[in-house]
C-alpha cells in the first residue's frame, strides 16, 4: 500500500521499551496496542514526531554518546548509549548525498564511531590509532563524507569495549534509483548479545579459564547416557587437548540475546498485513555471538548480504556472523504471528521476536536445538576426513586439495596426525605459545553449511549460494596471493593473525593502490572468525565468477579456509580484524595499508 519509506514510519513508535527500562529508541520499539488500532491521521502525527526524533536523516546528523543504567533479565547493568538509547538511533541516508555526522562525547573516556561497511575516506573511518585520534571527552568530532552506496549497514564504537556495552545502531541507505527488489514494508532486525558483566571482566575470566562460559561440556553422566562423543573419540580429542563443545567463548550462561534491544520475554514485534512482501534488514551487532536465524514455517528470500545486492535466493535458515548484515524478503500469507528466531550457534540461548498482523500477538517460542559438536573438519582435517566423518549433504570443496591417501580410509589414525606441523606455516608466521594448532588439511568451506546447521532438515544458506546482482567491476585475475592464518591458543585465550598480536607491533599488510590480490584466510582454530576489512568490499572466491558476492565481513569456519579477491582501491590505513570483540581485543587485529603504486 505504501512504499518502504512511508511504511517505515509504521514501525516507529513512541514509548519506552519494556526490555530496557526506557533506553530503547523509537525505531526499535514494539507497536503499542492502543495506538496501532487506529492508524489514522492522529496516530501518524504522533509517529512522525517520533520518527524525526529517532530516525536521523538529512545532511547533518548529531549524535551524542552517553551512558545509562539498564536492566535486562534480573541483573542491572550499564550501557553506553547514542542519543540516550541502546541500540542507537536509526540513521537513514540516501545514496549520493553528502553527510556530516557530528559526534559529541559526554563520557569521561575517549570514544569513536566506525561506519561499518561504508566506503569513506580513511580519516573518517573512526578507528582510534589508525584513522584518527579518537573523540576526547567533551569534544565533538565531525565526520564528513559522501554516501557512495545503498543498503543495510550499521555503526559502532571502535574504542575500548563500548560496542559490547551498547554503542551500536543501524544505518539504512536508500538507493539513488528504484529499489531493485520490491517490498511493501520493512523492519530493521538488529541482533545483539548483552551481559550485565563488564566486557573487560568477561575477557579476564576467559584469560583465567578458557572454557569459563561453556556450560555444555561433555560429562561422564553424558557418556553413561550415551550422549555426545563415544569414549574412543573423547580420548582422541583429549589427547589433542581439544574440546568439541568449545563453539562460543561467551555463551547464554551470561548473555541475554536481543532483537532490537528486546529479549524473548519483551518480544519485539514488527507488524505486517497478510500477503505483503516484508523486508527484514538483519544486522548482527553482537560482541561475540554468531546466530542461526529462521522464521519457522516461512521461507526467506535473501536479497542483500553486507548491504550489497545479491541475486534473490530462497532459504529456510541462515547463519549471520558478528558484523554481517542480511536483507531478506518474507511474505506471510496468514494472519498469524510468525516467530523470528535468532539462536546462538552453540545453542546456549536464543531470542524470539514476532512478526504479527496486529499488535499484542506473540509467536510461539521454540525449544533450543541440541548443542552441536565440532568435528575433525572443524579441526582443520577437512582434507583428510573423507570417509570417517558425517558431513552434511551437499557440501563440496571448491578448492580442496585431494585427500591425503594415508588418512582417507576409515577412521582417522589420530596418532599419525600432526596438530602443529610447522612446515605448514607460511614464512613470517610466529610459532609461539599463542599458536596451539595449525590446520593440517584445511579445506575451502565457503560451500559448507555453517556450524550447527550441517544436518538441519531444511534449506540452509551457504556463502556459495550468494551471487552478486551486478557483476564485479574489476574482472582482473589477482596479481598475487596473500595467505593469512587465523591463529589461537584457546586455553590461554590468545588470538592473533599469523601468530602475532597487534600489541607486538607487526608490520602492516601493505597493498599497492589499485592492485588486485587474492587473500586466503586459513583458520588454524576451532572457532569461526568473522574477519572484517575496513574501507573495502572484497569478492568471495565462491565459484560465482564475476558474480562473486561482495562483502565487508567473511565468517571463516573452524579449521577451514576462505579466499577473497580484493581490489585495494581505498588509499590509507585501515583496520583488519576479527569482529569477535574479545578476539580483536586479544590481538587478532592488523593494520592494512593501501599506498600509491
Amino acid at each position, binding site marked *: 500500500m505504501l512504499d518502504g519509506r512511508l511504511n517505515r514510519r509504521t514501525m516507529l513508535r513512541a514509548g519506552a521499551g519494556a526490555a530496557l527500562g526506557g533506553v530503547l529508541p523509537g525505531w526499535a520499539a514494539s507497536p503499542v496496542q492502543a495506538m496501532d488500532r487506529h492508524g489514522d491521521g492522529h496516530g501518524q502525527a504522533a509517529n512522525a514526531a517520533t520518527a524525526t526524533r529517532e530516525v536521523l536523516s538529512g545532511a547533518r546528523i548529531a549524535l551524542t554518546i552517553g551512558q545509562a543504567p539498564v536492566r535486562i533479565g534480573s541483573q542491572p547493568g550499564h550501557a553506553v548509549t547514542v542519543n540516550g538509547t541502546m541500540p542507537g538511533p536509526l540513521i537513514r541516508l540516501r545514496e549520493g548525498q553528502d553527510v556530516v555526522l557530528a559526534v559529541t562525547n559526554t563520557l569521561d573516556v575517549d570514544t569513536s564511531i566506525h561506519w561499518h561497511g561504508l566506503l569513506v575516506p580513511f580519516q573518517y573511518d573512526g578507528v582510534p590509532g589508525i584513522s584518527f585520534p579518537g573523540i576526547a571527552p567533551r569534544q565533538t568530532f565531525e565526520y564528513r563524507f559522501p554516501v557512495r552506496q545503498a543498503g543495510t549497514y550499521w555503526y559502532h564504537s571502535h574504542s575500548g569495549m563500548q560496542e559490547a556495552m551498547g554503542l551500536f545502531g543501524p544505518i539504512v541507505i536508500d538507493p539513488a534509483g528504484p529499489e531493485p527488489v520490491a517490498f511493501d514494508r520493512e523492519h530493521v532486525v538488529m541482533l545483539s548479545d548483552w551481559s550485565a558483566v563488564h566486557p573487560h571482566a568477561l575477557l579476564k575470566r576467559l584469560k583465567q579459564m578458557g572454557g569459563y562460559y561453556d556450560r555444555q561440556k561433555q560429562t561422564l553422566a553424558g557418556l553413561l547416557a550415551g550422549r555426545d562423543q563415544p569414549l574412543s573419540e573423547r580420548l582422541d580429542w583429549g589427547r589433542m587437548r581439544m574440546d568439541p563443545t568449545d563453539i562460543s567463548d561467551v555463551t547464554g550462561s551470561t548473555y541475554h540475546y536481543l532483537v532490537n534491544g528486546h529479549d524473548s520475554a519483551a518480544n519485539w514485534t514488527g507488524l505486517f498485513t497478510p500477503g505483503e512482501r516484508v523486508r527484514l534488514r538483519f544486522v548482527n551487532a553482537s560482541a561475540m555471538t554468531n546466530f542461526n536465524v529462521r522464521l519457522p514455517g516461512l521461507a526467506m528470500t535473501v536479497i542483500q548480504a553486507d548491504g550489497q545486492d545479491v541475486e534473490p535466493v530462497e532459504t529456510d535458515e541462515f547463519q549471520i556472523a558478528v558484523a554481517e548484515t542480511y536483507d531478506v524478503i518474507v511474505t506471510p500469507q496468514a494472519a498469524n504471528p510468525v516467530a523470528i528466531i535468532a539462536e546462538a550457534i552453540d545453542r546456549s540461548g536464543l531470542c524470539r521476536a514476532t512478526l504479527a498482523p496486529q499488535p499484542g500477538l506473540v509467536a510461539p517460542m521454540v525449544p533450543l536445538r541440541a548443542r552441536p559438536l565440532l568435528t575433525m573438519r572443524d579441526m582443520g582435517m577437512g582434507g583428510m576426513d573423507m570417509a570417517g566423518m558425517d558431513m552434511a549433504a551437499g557440501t563440496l570443496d571448491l578448492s580442496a586439495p585431494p585427500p591425503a591417501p594415508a588418512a582417507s580410509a576409515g577412521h582417522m589414525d589420530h596418532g599419525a596426525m600432526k596438530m602443529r606441523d610447522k612446515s605448514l606455516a607460511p614464512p613470517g608466521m610466529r610459532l609461539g*605459545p599463542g599458536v596451539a594448532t595449525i590446520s593440517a588439511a584445511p579445506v575451502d568451506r565457503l560451500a559448507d553449511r555453517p556450524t550447527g546447521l550441517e544436518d538441519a532438515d531444511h534449506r540452509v544458506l551457504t556463502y556459495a549460494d550468494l551471487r552478486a546482482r551486478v557483476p564485479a567491476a574489476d574482472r582482473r585475475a589477482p596479481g*598475487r596471493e596473500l595467505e593469512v592464518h587465523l591463529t589461537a591458543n584457546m586455553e590461554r585465550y590468545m588470538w592473533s593473525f599469523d601468530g602475532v598480536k597487534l600489541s607486538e607491533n607487526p608490520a602492516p599488510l*601493505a597493498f*599497492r593502490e589499485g592492485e588486485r590480490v587474492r587473500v586466503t584466510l586459513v583458520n588454524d582454530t576451532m572457532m569461526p572468525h568473522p574477519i572484517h576489512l575496513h574501507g573495502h568490499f572484497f569478492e568471495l572466491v565462491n565459484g560465482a565468477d564475476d558474480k562473486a558476492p561482495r562483502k565487508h565481513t567473511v565468517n571463516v569456519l573452524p579449521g577451514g579456509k576462505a579466499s577473497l*579477491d580484493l581490489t585495494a582501491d581505498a588509499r590509507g590505513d585501515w583496520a583488519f580484524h576479527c569482529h569477535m570483540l574479545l578476539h580483536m581485543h586479544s*590481538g587478532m*587485529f592488523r593494520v592494512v595499508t593501501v599506498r*600509491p603504486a
Partner: protein
Amino acid sequence: MSARHLCAPLLLVLGAAPVGAQDMAHHHAPAGTDAAAGAAPAAETFGPPAPADHAADAVWDPAAMARARRALTAEAGGMTQSMLLVDQLEWQPARGADAYRWEAKGWWGGDIDRVALETRGEGETGAPLDQGEVEVGWLHAIDPWFNVRAGVRQDFGKGPARTHAALTIEGLAPYWFDVEASLFVSNKGEVSARAEASYDQRLTQRLILQPRAELNAAASAVPARGLGSGPTSAELGLRLRYEIVREFAPYAGLAWERKLGGTARLARAAGEDSGGLRAVAGVRFWF
C-alpha cells in the same frame, strides 16, 4: 579538531593518481574470482614493502595519533590480567588433633610472562604450623601448553628454616592432565624434587571429581628436617567438588598420605605416624 583544515596536506602527500586498472582489460576465461591468483600479467609473489609512516599522521596531529596508536596497541593483546586460585583450603578431621591444609597459586602479567606466587602448607589445630612454604617467581610460557617457573621458595614451620631456588615446569599434558615437576636447591645445598598431577573429571557440568597424586624426593638425607634420601613422601587425593559458581566450590574427599623410606623411619623414631588415610572437606575458590 576539524578535519577540513587538515585535509589539504594529505591530498598533497598522496596525490590524486587514478587507479591503473584499465591496462588489463583483455583477459580470457576463467576470469573474475574463478581465475587463479598470480595469473595476471604482472604476477608477483610479494606485495610492496610496508611503509614506515602512518597515513593518518598527514591528516591529524601526529602527536595525538601517536598517543592513540599506543593505546590501541596496548589494548589489542597487551593487557595484563591476574588470578589467585586457592585450590585447597581444607580441614582433615582426625582421632587426635584435626589437621588443616592449604594450597594456592596466583599470577599477574601478560600472556607470556607473569609474576607467579605459590603457597602451601599444613598443620594441626592447636599446634604451631607444621610446614609451610611461599614461592615467588617468574612464570614464562614456553609452548602452547607448558610454562616454566623460576623462583625463590621460603619454608616455614618445624625444623630449621630453608630458602630454596626453585625451578618448575608446569602445564597441561595430553588428555587434560594438569602436571607439574619442580626441582629445589636449598641455601644449604640440599636438592629435592616434587612431581604432581591431577585431572578434573566432570561428572556433570558442576560436579567435578579430581584425582590427584604427588611425589616428593630428596637427593640426600636432611635429618634436621626429618627427611631421608630418595622418595620422601607420596600423596593421593580424591576430591569431589560442586561448583556453585565456577569461582566457588565446596568439596569433600579422601587424602592418603605416606612418608617413605628413610623419612618414614625418622618419623617413627620421633614418635610420629608415617601417614594414612584421612577424610577431607574444604573449599576451592578463585578470583
